[in-house]
C-alpha cells in the first residue's frame, strides 16, 4: 500500500519537475545560434574550479561561500543515498540492508552535519541580516527551500536513533522522501533551477572573459534587437541566474549610483523569456539607459559563480541599437572620428608622425627589430601618454631591445567593438591585420591594455594570432635581473597602484606591475592597495565608449570620481597607472575633486625615473 502511494506521489512530483524543466529547455532549444566549445581544456578547468571546488562562490564571500560549498558537496555525497531510498520506496530493490550502505550512511554523517550547519547559516543570513544584494524583499521560497534542506538532514540524522519499522521511524522516512519530492517540484520555477543548470552553464562559459562573437555580415546579422534574438547561451544564462548579486556589488556603474544593475538585466531577460515576449525590443526590456552605462569592465561576468556571460548580451543589444541608429549622441562624434581619421580623437595622422619623428622611432622590419611597439590612439596623440611611452623607449634602448613601429596604425577598434558598432570594428580590424601581416612581427608590445585584449583576443577571430604583451609584463621580465641598490634620500613614498580592468581582470596580469613598483621604488616605497584591486579592480569609467559620455545624462556620480576617492583613501600621494584611459579619467576626476596634491604617474615613467637606483 505504502509502495503504491509512493509511486503515485513519485510520478506526480517528478512529472511536475520534468514538465517545468522541459518548458525551459524548449526555450533554450528555440533560441538561435549554437553552443560553442573553444578548446575543451579551458571549459573542463572552469568546471572543476567553479563547480566542483566552488572557488568563485567562496572567493568573494568566504563564510557564505563555504556554507554554500558544504551544502553543494553534501548534495553530491547524498546522491547515492537518495537513489537507494527511492529504489526501496518504489519497491524495485532494497539495498538498505547491505553492509556497504551502512558504511555509506556513516560516512554521510559529517556531510549531513556540514550541510545542516551551512544551510542554517545561509538561512539566518537571508532571513535576518538580509544583505541588499539578495534583493529588498525576503524570498519566501528560499526560506522554504532552506527549511527543506534542514529537514532532510535532520531526518537523515534522526534515522540513526529510530527503529525503521516503528511508527516514528516510518514517519521520519516519509517526511524525508516527501520533502525531496516537494523540493524537486519547487526547483524549476525558482532560482534553485541553478542546481540543475549551473554545472552546464559554467562548463559552457567562454574561457575568455568578455568574449563577444563577431557578427557575420554575410548572413545579415545586425546584433540583438528583440528577445527572440537572444542566443542559446544567453537564454541558458538567464534561466540559470541564482540572484546572488555578486555582479551587482562589483558593478562600477551600480556602485556609482547609475541605473545599471547586471543582475536586474539578467532577470529582466529571464522574465521576458518566460512570459514569451519574443517580439519585445531589448532596448525596452533591458533598458537603453542601462545598456549604455556599462563600461565593459567585466566584473559581473568574472565574479558570477554560475557561469553567466553578461557582455555578449549587453554588447549584443548595443549592436541592435546601433544598427537601428539608436546609439547615444556622444558616440556619433567618436564614430565619425573613427570613420574619417581612424582614431578616437579625430586628429590628423600627421600628429602621430610628428611624435614618431620626435621620438626617433623606426618603422618595424622583422630583420632589424625584436618587437613591434603598438602606440595606440593615446600613444599616438595624447601628449601626456606620449611622455610615458618615451619612458618605455628609454628603458628598451638602455637594455638594447630593438623595436620599431608600424608606419600606418589605426585604432584597434576597441571602442567600436564594445559599443556595438561591429561594422566599424571589423573595418578597423581588417585594415590593421593587413598592416600587421605585412610587417610580420612575432611579438607586439603596447602600453594600452585595451589594445592587448583587442589585438590579442578579438583579432584571433579573423585568423590573426600574435603574441601581444603589456609593457608592464615586458619590462618586468626585461629587468628581472636588475638588483635594487640605492634607497632614495628623503622619506618613504606612499604609492598606490590602480589596476586597469583590461590588464588585471582581462589579462590577469597583477604581479608584474607590483614587482616593478617594489623593485624600482625600493625601500622607499610603501605600496598601499586600494579597495578593489588586482583581478577585481574598480573601473576608471572609460571603457565601453564611456570616455566620451556626458555626465548630465546619467544619475549618480561619475565612476571616475568614485574610483578617485577610493585611491585617495589609501592615503598615497602618488597613484601609478598603467593604462592611458585610466590616466585620462582619473586625472579628470582629480581636477573636479576638492583640492588635493595627488600625483599621477604612469608605471613606465615611474620605472624609468628610478632606474638609477637599480643596478641593471
Amino acid at each position, binding site marked *: 500500500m505504502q509502495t503504491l502511494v509512493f509511486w503515485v506521489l513519485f510520478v506526480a512530483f517528478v512529472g511536475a519537475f520534468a514538465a517545468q524543466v522541459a518548458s525551459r529547455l524548449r526555450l533554450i532549444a528555440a533560441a538561435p545560434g549554437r553552443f560553442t566549445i573553444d578548446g575543451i581544456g579551458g571549459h573542463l578547468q572552469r568546471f572543476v574550479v567553479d563547480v566542483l571546488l566552488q572557488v568563485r562562490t567562496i572567493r568573494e564571500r568566504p563564510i557564505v561561500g563555504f556554507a554554500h560549498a558544504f551544502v553543494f558537496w553534501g548534495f553530491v555525497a547524498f546522491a547515492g543515498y537518495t537513489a537507494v531510498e527511492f529504489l526501496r520506496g518504489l519497491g524495485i530493490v532494497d539495498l538498505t540492508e547491505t553492509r556497504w550502505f551502512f558504511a555509506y550512511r556513516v560516512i554521510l554523517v559529517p556531510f549531513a552535519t556540514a550541510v545542516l550547519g551551512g544551510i542554517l547559516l545561509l538561512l539566518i543570513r537571508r532571513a535576518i541580516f538580509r544583505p541588499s544584494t539578495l534583493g529588498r524583499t525576503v524570498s519566501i521560497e528560499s526560506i522554504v527551500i532552506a527549511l527543506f534542506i534542514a529537514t532532510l538532514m535532520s531526518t537523515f540524522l534522526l534515522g540513526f536513533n529510530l527503529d525503521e519499522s516503528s511508527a516514528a521511524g516510518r514517519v521520519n522516512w516519509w517526511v524525508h522522501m516527501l520533502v525531496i519530492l516537494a523540493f524537486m517540484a519547487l526547483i524549476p520555477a525558482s532560482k534553485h533551477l541553478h542546481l540543475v543548470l549551473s554545472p552546464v552553464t559554467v562548463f559552457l562559459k567562454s574561457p575568455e572573459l568578455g568574449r563577444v562573437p563577431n557578427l557575420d555580415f554575410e548572413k545579415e546579422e545586425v546584433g540583438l534587437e528583440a528577445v527572440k534574438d537572444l542566443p542559446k547561451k544567453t537564454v541558458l544564462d538567464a534561466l540559470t541566474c541564482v540572484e546572488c548579486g555578486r555582479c551587482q556589488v562589483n558593478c562600477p556603474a551600480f556602485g556609482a549610483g547609475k541605473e545599471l544593475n547586471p543582475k536586474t538585466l539578467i532577470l529582466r531577460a529571464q522574465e521576458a523569456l518566460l512570459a514569451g515576449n519574443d517580439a519585445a525590443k531589448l532596448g525596452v526590456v533591458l533598458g537603453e539607459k542601462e545598456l549604455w552605462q556599462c563600461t565593459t569592465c567585466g566584473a559581473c561576468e568574472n565574479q558570477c559563480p554560475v557561469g553567466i556571460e553578461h557582455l555578449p548580451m549587453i554588447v549584443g543589444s548595443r549592436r541592435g541599437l546601433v544598427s537601428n541608429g539608436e546609439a547615444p549622441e*556622444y558616440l556619433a*562624434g*567618436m564614430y565619425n572620428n573613427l570613420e574619417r581619421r581612424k582614431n578616437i*580623437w*579625430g*586628429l*590628423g595622422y*600627421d600628429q602621430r608622425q610628428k611624435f614618431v619623428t620626435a621620438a626617433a622611432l623606426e618603422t618595424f622590419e622583422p630583420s632589424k627589430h625584436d618587437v613591434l611597439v603598438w602606440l595606440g590612439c*593615446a600613444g599616438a*596623440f*595624447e*601628449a*601626456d601618454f606620449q611622455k610615458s611611452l618615451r619612458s618605455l623607449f628609454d628603458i628598451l634602448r638602455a637594455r638594447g631591445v630593438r623595436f620599431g613601429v608600424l608606419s600606418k596604425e589605426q585604432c584597434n577598434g576597441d571602442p567600436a567593438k564594445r559599443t556595438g558598432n561591429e561594422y566599424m570594428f571589423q573595418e578597423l580590424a581588417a585594415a590593421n591585420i593587413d598592416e600587421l601581416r605585412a610587417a610580420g612581427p612575432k611579438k607586439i608590445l603596447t602600453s594600452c591594455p585595451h589594445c592587448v585584449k583587442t589585438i590579442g583576443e578579438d583579432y584571433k577571430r579573423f585568423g590573426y594570432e600574435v603574441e601581444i604583451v603589456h609593457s608592464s609584463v615586458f619590462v618586468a621580465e626585461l629587468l628581472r635581473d636588475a638588483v635594487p641598490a640605492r634607497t632614495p634620500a628623503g622619506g618613504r613614498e606612499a604609492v598606490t597602484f590602480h589596476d586597469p580592468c583590461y590588464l588585471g581582470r582581462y589579462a590577469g596580469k597583477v604581479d608584474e606591475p607590483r614587482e616593478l613598483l617594489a623593485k624600482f621604488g625600493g625601500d622607499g616605497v610603501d605600496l598601499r592597495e586600494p579597495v578593489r584591486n588586482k583581478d577585481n579592480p574598480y573601473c576608471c569609467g572609460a571603457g565601453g565608449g564611456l*570616455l*566620451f*559620455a*556626458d*555626465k*548630465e545624462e546619467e544619475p549618480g556620480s561619475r565612476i571616475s570620481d568614485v574610483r578617485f576617492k577610493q585611491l585617495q583613501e589609501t592615503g598615497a600621494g602618488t597613484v601609478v597607472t598603467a593604462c592611458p584611459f585610466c590616466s*585620462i579619467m582619473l*586625472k*579628470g576626476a582629480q*581636477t*573636479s575633486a576638492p583640492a588635493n596634491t595627488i600625483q599621477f604617474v604612469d608605471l613606465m615613467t615611474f620605472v624609468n625615473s628610478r632606474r638609477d637606483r637599480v643596478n641593471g
Partner: protein
Amino acid sequence: MILVIAEHRAGKLNRASWEAVAAAQQLAAGQPVVIAVLGSGVGSVASELAAAQVQEVVTLDAAPLEPYTPDGFTTALQQAIDQLKPALVVLPHTYQTRDFAPKLAARLDRALITDVTGFKLDAPGAPRFVRPMFQGKLTADIVPEGPAPHIVTIQIGSFRADAAAKGASPAPVRALPVTVDPAAVRQKPEAPFQEAKQAVDLSQAERIVSVGRGIKEADKLPIAQGLAAALHAELAASRPICDAGWLPMDRQVGSSGQTVAPKLYLALGISGAIQHLVGMKGSQTIVAINKDADAPIFEVADYGIVGDLFEVVPAMIDALKQT
C-alpha cells in the same frame, strides 16, 4: 557677368551673403555683378541687397521656392542662369549651398570649386581659386576648365562682409520669371528646429574666452568675464569648472561638451587634457595662458604665455581698453 546667389532664411539675410558679394566684386575686375535671391515674397531681402554696388538684384520669386528644397532651387537657378548667362556663379559656402551646389553643377554639367578661401587673378576674368585640402594642411590653386559658367563657393569668413562696396543709390530690383512645378519638388521639408539642449551655441561664436581649473575659485570668474566682455567674446570652460557648477554645463567645451571652432580661442588656466583639446583644436588662433610650461595646451597653442593668469589677464584687459 558674375552672379551671386544670396541666402536668407524667412526673410533674414545670411551674413555670409555679403561676404560672397564682396568676393564677387573683387573677382569682377570691371565685369558687372548681379545678385539673385530665391524664395517667395523676397522683396525686403532684395531691397536690403540693393544697397550693394551691383548692376542689379534679381528675384526668383515662386511659391514652391519657400521653404528651401534642393529640387526647387536647382530648377529655378538653372532657368536664371540660362537667362542671365553669367561667366561665374558665386555662392557662400553654407550648409544650404553644400546641399544643392553639387546638384546644380551636375545639372548644368559645369565645374564646381567649393570652399574657396581666395583667388589670384592671372589675367582679368581668369582667376585661379585657392582652397584648402587635407583638413587645411595644404592649399591648392585650382583653375576651372570647360565652358562657363563656373561655380565657386566661398568659405565663410574668407572675405569680409563689410568690404562689400555699397552703391551711391540702391541698385534696381527686377523680378526674373521662373516656373517651378511643385509636383517636381520631391523633398517635403519639415519646419526647421533647433535642438533645445544647448541654450548657448558656442559653435557660432567668433571669439571664445575659456576658463580652466587654473582660475582656482568661482569668485575669480569675473576676471575671465571681464576679458570676454573686452573682446566681445563668449565665455566657455573646461570640464571641472562646469562640474563644480561655476558655469552652466552648456558652456563646456570638449569631448563631453561642445565642439567649437572660433577665430580666436583664449584658454585661461586650462592644462589641455585631450578631451578638451579635441573640442577646440579647430580654432583658427589659439592663445594659451598657463603657469605650467609643460602643459599640453601649449602643444596646440599658436601663442603661449607662461605666466599667472591673475597678472596677465588684467594687463590684457587694460591694453584692450586703451585701443
